[in-house]
């Protein structure tokens, strides 16, 4: 059984009371009160006596009279309040969880196919169950990497709808396949033409013979026609414009 003791409320109250009386003494008393206030967590009742002790030094008034009954009533009130808050918290949490669950169910429903198709699938599957078993077995033999389960799905779709003929493909599989193929091509390109291989251009290769002839000839592809294409295009445009301008001015 949890018993919540309102010990923290007492300590600041005692500090405030002592501050009113006087500065240095009050600080001491505050410290004292606080110190006394904290370790008293084990005690169930009567932190009032410490207050009374502190108060005694400053005024000769009689301590407050608090009957046992009132204190008990207060304590019970406190307990009830605390229990209430706890219950409220619990119910709030429950509600939250409930709402979340409903949201998830709804999302799941949205993800699945509409009921009509599901019905069709279940009825059709009952018809040709045997064939599926055989197919599944075969497919399980073939593919053990985990993509086998996906392939089974594909197989199912194919044989159910016999009026329409289509093949369902998982795009994720295709991406994986493409990336693997690209990696393989990159590997072979790298190993044959990548860094570390001793490759040269075709032009240089064909020109070797020309260089060793008794009468040295030029390289096989001496001119680089792809050089400065942008420059050449600009020059062409400029020339055309200039010609037009020249043709226009004498007419004036």
């Amino acid at each position, binding site marked *: 059984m949890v018993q919540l003791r309102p010990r923290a409320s007492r300590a600041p109250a005692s500090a405030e009371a002592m501050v009113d009386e006087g500065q240095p003494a009050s600080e001491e008393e505050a410290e004292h009160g606080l110190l006394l206030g904290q370790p008293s967590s084990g005690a169930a009742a009567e932190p009032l006596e410490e207050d009374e002790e502190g108060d005694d030094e400053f005024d000769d008034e009689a301590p407050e009279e608090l009957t046992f009954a009132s204190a008990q009533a207060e304590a019970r009130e406190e307990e009830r309040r605390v229990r209430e808050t706890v219950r409220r918290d619990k119910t709030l949490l429950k509600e939250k969880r409930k709402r979340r669950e409903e949201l998830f169910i709804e999302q799941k429903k949205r993800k699945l196919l509409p009921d009509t198709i599901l019905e069709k699938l279940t009825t059709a599957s009952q018809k040709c169950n045997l064939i599926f078993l055989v197919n599944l077995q075969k497919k399980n033999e073939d593919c053990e990497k985990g993509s086998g389960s996906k392939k089974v799905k594909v197989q199912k779709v194919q044989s159910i709808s016999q009026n329409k003929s289509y093949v369902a493909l998982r795009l994720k599989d295709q991406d994986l396949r493409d990336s693997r193929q690209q990696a393989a091509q990159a590997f072979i390109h790298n190993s044959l*033409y990548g860094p570390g291989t001793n490759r040269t251009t075709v032009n240089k*290769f064909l020109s*070797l013979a020309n*260089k060793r002839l008794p009468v040295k000839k030029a390289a096989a592809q001496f001119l680089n026609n792809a050089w400065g294409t942008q420059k050449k295009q600009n020059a062409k445009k400029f020339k055309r414009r200039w010609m037009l301008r020249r043709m226009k001015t004498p007419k004036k």
Partner: protein
Amino acid sequence: MGEFKVHRVRFFNYVPSGIRCVAYNNQSNRLAVSRTDGTVEIYNLSANYFQEKFFPGHESRATEALCWAAGQRLFSAGLNGEIIEYDLQALNVKYAMDAFGGPIWSMTASPSGSQLLVGCEDGSVKLFQITPDKIQFERNFDRQKSRILSLSWHPSGTHIAAGSIDYISVFDVKSGSTIHKMIVDRQYMGVSKRKCIVWGVAFLSDGTVISVDSAGKVQFWDSATGTLVKSHLIANADVQSIAVADQEDSFVVGTAEGTIFHFQLLPVTSNSNEKQWVRTKPFQHHTHDVRTVAHSPTALISGGTDTHLVIRPLMEKVEVKNYDAALRKITFPHRRLISCSKKRQLLLFQFTHHLELWRLGSTVATGTVEAMCLLAVSPDGSWLAASGTSAGVRVYNVKQLKLHCTVPAYNFPVTALAIAPDTNNLVIAHSDQQVFEYSIPDKQYTEWSRTVQKQGFHHLWLQRDTPITHISFHPKRPMHILLHDAYMFCIIDKSLPLPSDKTLLYNPLPPMNESDVVRRRTAHAFKISKIYKPLLFLDLLDERTLVAVERPLDDIIAQLPPPIKKKKFGT
């Protein structure tokens, strides 16, 4: 003969794609060749090396491995992860089966021919069973750490050698487990940062495994103990392919520098029993990487990035030393890729993915996608001649839409067909350089054809390398037949006497003041000119004009990928 104006066309930008794999079938003496763009060609080596079948390719079906299995079935595998079987009768792809191992790098058939083994990107070696109509997955072997780049079966079918990156593993077929893992040095007697890729392995029946790798080494390993026996450094670049003869006394390797080396098992001294492997002959017939080699009983076959297929018969294996023993280099296609419309002066070029239509005299280009086959239509539109894979050329009557007659079958495939305009004679050229003339209305061979056959062709005519790819006729001169192959064109004049074996076949041509005019002073029927070569197409446009499409080899080479650097003194 007449003077002609000639349109010399050199702008047909035909670049063949490099050869990736070759596979030799001993039983039928056929060679399957696959290229980097996915086309597969089948050459009939006994029919004068004629390319008889052709499967057009697609980049997604680019092959990395090709093999014959179960007799006459052809399989290929590539980087898209599928094993493809080809239907050789229907000339299409039978089916494509995904191997679920990622890209496939290598494939080999078992010695019995009933099983197929593939090596995949993820390091797994998969065994497939060949059933009569399909292949079926059987099991996986132990998975390795890096991709399996080459495979080889032991001739007894009990063990397998698989080459990977930096190591070779030997598997036991029955259990599928690795027996040995042999580590390959990265450099011959040295250290290198680059990984050593084992491009090819071969398993001999005495347990020796021969490996070729990217450091330029050929190494002999003992599979019983898993140790290195001998190492040869033969090149500064990768050695990319290996093929062993059936008798296991010789093998050939191809390097990235374009050289192929022949290794033979020879006795140590002339009368000792001990034999060792010796590197005997180098051949330099290629300029770029030799990515694949094959060993037939009498010849070494090599192909690579420079697109030539080279068949080098071995002198010691050839019985009769005749023209058959010379080197064959197949560069230009054996099919006609160009057609000409005479009235409209248009030329149609066939590329892999598009067609280009050019008007002679001006330039226009369009594109569509079509297919081509060996057909000939008579100019008046009443007859259609077709030759397919089965024997005999069939002639159909177009107006009545039925079969008219069939030319008797000949054991060599047809390379060119044409129907003459007025006489409706069908002229057929075969791959052994025989030319027949068949009269369609009479349903028999013509007189001229019979005389030619009786006398036989000139021996130089029969020794030509390349097949005749196009035949055409002169509209005003029915006695002339114009035909050409890659290195010559010839006008046969039926009215002149035929040359006997002793006369000169090729007559010297006196040079004229115009370079486009050709003139001959001969007395025999075969008038041959070798001015325009290499010739892809030649045809008669009208009475006075010829069009010749040439493809200089240099233009093709200029568009190939980079070769290995060769250091020559003084450059």
